């Protein structure tokens, strides 16, 4: 078996493998799928009791947190629509007003979103303090949804 000659079978096989991998990577990079619904999308087709992942920006001035009862309420927005969210428990550090967040939970018939898990969305940018330019709203929404890229 030593010093195997370059059989046509291997050449063809490796070429097909390379093609399949390239195709996979191409399909993967160009695929744009939605990983979570936005508040507007939720409003147009909300099913009560169905589990959703909802992503948006936490509205300024909407966070209402009662440490005694661990009751957290806030509003997620995408610029057009707003969804009131309720959660029982603490929120992660990066969670804050004017920042992106993704919540998992269900849409309740009472007209609010009951979250079982709150995840603060990382910005894709790591910034040193001095080049701080607070990202605009559009940019933040874009970074929230840019996972599709």
């Amino acid at each position, binding site marked *: 078996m030593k010093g195997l000659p370059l059989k046509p079978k291997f050449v063809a096989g*490796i070429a097909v*493998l390379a093609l*399949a991998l390239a195709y*996979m990577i191409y*399909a993967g990079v160009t695929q744009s*799928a939605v990983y979570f619904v936005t508040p507007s999308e939720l409003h147009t087709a909300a099913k009560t*009791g169905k589990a959703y992942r909802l992503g948006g920006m936490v509205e300024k001035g909407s966070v209402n947190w009662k440490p005694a009862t661990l009751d957290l309420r806030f509003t997620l927005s995408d610029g057009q629509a707003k969804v009131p969210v309720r959660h029982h428990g603490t929120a992660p550090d990066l969670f804050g007003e004017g920042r992106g967040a993704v919540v998992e939970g269900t849409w309740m018939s009472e007209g609010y979103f009951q979250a079982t898990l709150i995840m603060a969305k990382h910005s894709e940018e790591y910034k040193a303090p001095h080049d701080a330019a607070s990202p605009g709203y559009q940019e933040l929404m874009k970074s929230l949804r840019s996972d599709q890229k």
Partner: protein
Amino acid sequence: MTFVRRAWAVVWKDVLAERRSKETVNAVLFFSVLLLFVFEFTLGADRDRLASVLPGLLWLGVLLAALLGLGRSFVLERENECWEALLLTPGDKSAVYVGKLAGNLLLMALVEAVVLTLFTLFMNVDVGRALPGLLLVLALGTLGIAAVGTLFGAMTAHVRARELLFPVLLLPVLVPVLLAIVKSTEALLAGEPLGVVSHWLKLLVAADVIYVVVGLLTFDVLLEG
């Protein structure tokens, strides 16, 4: 003999042996029926919850049955001391791979037909309109599972603790295929058109091509024993 005829000889041998003993098919089919019981007992009380996890359960059933069946295919060759005979196959050894793969596909198709029927009957799955798309997903997914399963089955037949190592090797490699079939089954059963899951179909095609080609190229290395 041509490549196809050599592969066919392997399939025919396996089908014939199975038809006489009926060991694997009987055990695997009975196992999948038992799985239905287990699913019903552990999750059955809540119809709504069952409906939401059904695509996962369906595939879990097929997968567990496949693990049993695929693992046996080469162990039988070894136990019956037929390995040397396989090794003596003239010409390109990948014909043996194709033959074994075809045999395993037959077995899995049988299991899937049974599991799907049982699910429609006992768990009120409405397959109906989704069936053509579902069959496509099923076919692509099965090919992927069987391609890696046949390759790794030939390998683990020679390894200590093979019952353990076979699933341990197979399952993580098959994660992409599993995600693709479960997610597309979910979408199709929810009444979505096939276009919605086109990216999963692309992934399945790419995975099938990669697994089968790697299987063809490396099988003789494993057949050395």
